[in-house]
């Protein structure tokens, strides 16, 4: 590595930082005013790029290349802003009063729908845009050639930062944004039309994201993976910079981009006889930046401590142990599931499907431990599923360990990951917790994708077959049923134990729980670790069940599946997630895999749930036992 290549990469880092900043700034402004974390924010970035690569050639044919290119970018930004306004009016307005989790889910459903709509409109192939007229060359710089467009992009970030700064400080619209960020209700009480302001702010935020996406036209092709990858990066930037701080967003974007660029510039590094390919470590570097910042400044570089968030909606009814009827139903279900192998003769598919359901049940129940009693909605539970699955697969194939031992290795891997990531996550609550867990899950996914020597890259690990007696469909199914039942019993006991009471107390009132001597962060950390470990067990079972594991199986889609299972069944009961897991597994098996657009379908289902039951599914159902 030379000084020149370092400098070269540094300029590159500035160019990347601009893109990151544009997404994160919009996310931050929208959250500040509307208190909604827009999970679909990356989708607007992606749409901006798709619109630009479509508009630029169209406009170029009429008005010439230069006007086409820049007009395409401007047009894409404006169309994205208009789409944002439409989304705000049609969707968000209905969910401002809904619980946080529902808002996150609704905007995530939007992400799924936009992705499938993009697939439908533009097809699955990457689309390359035209080069920037006048900026397609390169500048000779210290013996290296710096693309002119990268220099241009590097300048755009600070320019937009300055523009936003002036907008916020010097205009009435900016004053309104700052005032509403602090106290929306008072802004309305002063006679300002809140609804209009929200629409304008959402259009501004999504327009900036679309602008950021469109600017990438000359740098990278439009592709369908952009929405999630950009969202994950934007979350890291926002958490590092401090939610609500535009300046923080730029500094954090620069920090993250430069550290990544540095890793790329370092290339192969030899330390103590071992050779590391630093360019592969860019994602780990991102994680390390976030870790260091959060340890030193838990609210981000320019963030402020979050005010204690009052829980919206009514207090949850206490959980009640099962009555006699309940016990009988559970027993009957257990007998039924234990008897499934007997059905194998008539319906050979039954044990296979039942295995999927059992694994989903353990996955959903482990997530529910955090979401229900813990009150912490994780948007990255797939991480621990993945760690468990990859740990098991690696131990079974590469290390050649016997099945039970390989399974234990998987659980231990998941436990280690949950302990490490959990330490950071439990410092945050609400949407911040959701964002950080999603970011960690993206990191685990990327590591699985990139660390080919261990994870097999995008192909994953194959030939993960269990030893006898687990090698038959029935054998594996019964073992999985046993593991799942054990896990469920453990969760149940924990929830009713003093530990569970402490967890629920912390959920209902963190301050009062702390004042009563409960170490809230420790209790939550332990819950996070237990949930992660049990989720890892589900992942290990999954690896054996499928005989393989690939990054696809541990993508953010799995995290969302878990959330949908818990919500479908009802977050207020311990049995709910099990019903939800069974229901969604059946649904996916029967309907969704039939269509290439099943993700969009899932999104529509989520939207329906959220719009029909805006205060939670449980509110739509008659209260059962324990109701006052």
């Amino acid at each position, binding site marked *: 590595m030379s000084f020149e290549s370092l400098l070269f990469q540094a300029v590159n880092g500035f160019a990347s930082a601009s893109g990151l900043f544009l997404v994160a700034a919009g996310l931050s402004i929208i959250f500040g005013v509307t208190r909604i974390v827009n999970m679909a924010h990356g989708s607007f970035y992606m749409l901006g790029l798709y619109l630009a690569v479509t508009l630029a050639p169209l406009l170029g044919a009429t008005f010439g290349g230069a006007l086409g290119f820049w007009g395409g970018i401007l047009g894409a930004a404006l169309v994205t802003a208009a789409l944002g306004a439409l989304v705000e009016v049609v969707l968000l307005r209905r969910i401002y009063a809904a619980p946080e989790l529902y808002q996150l889910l609704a905007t995530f459903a939007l992400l799924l729908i936009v992705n499938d709509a993009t697939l439908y409109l533009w097809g699955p192939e990457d689309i390359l845009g035209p080069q920037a007229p006048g900026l397609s060359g390169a500048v000779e710089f210290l013996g290296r050639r710096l693309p002119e467009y990268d220099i241009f992009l590097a300048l755009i970030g600070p320019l937009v930062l300055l523009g936003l700064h002036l907008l916020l400080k010097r205009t009435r619209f900016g004053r309104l944004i*700052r005032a509403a*960020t*602090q*106290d929306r209700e*008072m802004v*309305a009480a002063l*006679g300002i039309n809140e*609804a209009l302001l929200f629409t304008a702010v959402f259009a501004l935020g999504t327009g900036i994201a679309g602008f950021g996406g469109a600017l990438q036209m000359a740098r990278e092709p439009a592709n369908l993976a952009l929405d999630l990858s950009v969202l994950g990066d934007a979350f890291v930037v926002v958490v590092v910079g401090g939610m609500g701080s535009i300046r923080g967003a730029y500094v954090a974007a620069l920090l993250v981009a430069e550290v990544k660029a540095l890793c790329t510039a370092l290339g192969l590094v030899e330390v103590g006889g071992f050779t590391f390919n630093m360019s592969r470590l860019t994602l780990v570097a991102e994680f390390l930046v976030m870790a260091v910042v959060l340890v030193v400044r838990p609210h981000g570089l320019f963030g402020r401590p979050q005010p204690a968030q009052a829980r919206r909606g009514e207090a949850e009814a206490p959980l009640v142990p099962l009555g006699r009827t309940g016990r009988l139903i559970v027993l009957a279900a257990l007998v039924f599931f234990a008897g499934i192998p007997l059905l194998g003769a008539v319906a050979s598919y039954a044990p296979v499907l039942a295995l999927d359901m059992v694994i989903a049940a353990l996955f959903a129940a482990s997530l529910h431990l955090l979401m229900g009693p813990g009150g912490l909605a994780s948007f990255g539970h797939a991480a621990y599923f993945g760690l468990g699955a990859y740990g098991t697969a690696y131990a079974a194939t590469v290390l050649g360990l016997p099945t039970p031992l390989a399974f234990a290795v998987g659980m231990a891997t998941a436990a280690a990951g949950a302990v490490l990531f959990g330490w950071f996550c439990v410092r945050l609550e609400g949407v911040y917790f959701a964002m950080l867990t999603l970011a960690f899950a993206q990191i685990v996914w990327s590591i699985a994708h990139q660390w080919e020597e261990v994870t097999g890259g995008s192909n994953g690990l194959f030939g993960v077959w269990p030893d006898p007696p687990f090698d038959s469909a029935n054998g594996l199914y019964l073992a999985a049923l046993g593991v799942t039942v054990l896990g469920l019993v453990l969760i149940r006991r924990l929830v009713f134990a003093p530990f569970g009471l402490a967890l629920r107390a912390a959920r209902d009132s963190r301050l009062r729980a702390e004042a009563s001597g409960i170490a809230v962060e420790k209790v939550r950390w332990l819950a996070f670790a237990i949930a992660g470990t049990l989720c890892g067990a589900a992942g290990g079972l999954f690896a054996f069940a499928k005989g393989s594991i690939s990054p696809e199986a541990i993508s953010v889609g799995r995290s969302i599946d878990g959330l949908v299972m818990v919500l479908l069944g009802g977050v207020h009961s311990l049995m709910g997630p099990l019903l939800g897991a069974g229901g969604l597994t059946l649904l996916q098996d029967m309907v969704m895999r039939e269509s290439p657009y099943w993700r969009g379908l899932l999104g529509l289902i989520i939207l329906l749930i959220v719009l029909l039951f805006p205060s939670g599914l449980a509110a739509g159902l008659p209260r059962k036992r324990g109701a006052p």
Partner: protein
Amino acid sequence: MSARLPLLEIDGLDAWYGEAQILFGLSLQVATGEAVALVGRNGAGKSTTMKAIMGLVRRRANRLAFDGSDLAALPTHAIARLGIGYVPEDRRIFAELTVRENLDLGRRPRPPGATLPDWSMDAVFDLFPQLADMRARLGGQMSGGEQQMLAVARVLVGNPALLLLDEPSEGVAPIVVEHMTRALLRLKAGGLSLLISEQSSDLCAAICDRAYHIEQGELRGHGPMSARAPDIPPNAQAAPPTTSPL
């Protein structure tokens, strides 16, 4: 007094926080140019009454009207634009904005045909000279009393016909209470209508014509200020009596 035209009419007002009902069939009226006190213990429902008028809590009423317009179906900002200036209990100054910017947000031109004097920036700085010297100061860096003045000034520049003042003397120094009382008397003399909630009635005694007494969300009685219900408890945090009639 009540022979004058009613500006604010409330009849049978119920209001809720979440599932909990706070107000039960409350009725009151404020006539044009009148100053009315809303007195009662901490938690009686005074603040909720004001929030219910502004549409900030869920409410239902037989009649809830301002200047002849029904407020029931209007969003908060539209209620404010009809000419109601709401000064909340905790003042809710925008801490990140300067005094000048806080005032800018409240600024609305005088409605056509209004008979009240126009509250320009200069006019409020004349009313609260202290504010004039701290135009560039951030709201978060002001004392409680200064914030209270700013909160009143911020709604005044919107040229309202009625001010809702929720506990304007709470938590501020006696000298500020005195300033505030003087300022409110000037506003009343200028023709502005006032609805003031107080636990201690000293400020109200100096300003208000009539008083409504509410306890536990229900109206307990009303009458001229001098003949107000005698069982209002003295409050430990109450400001000392205003010394002279202003």
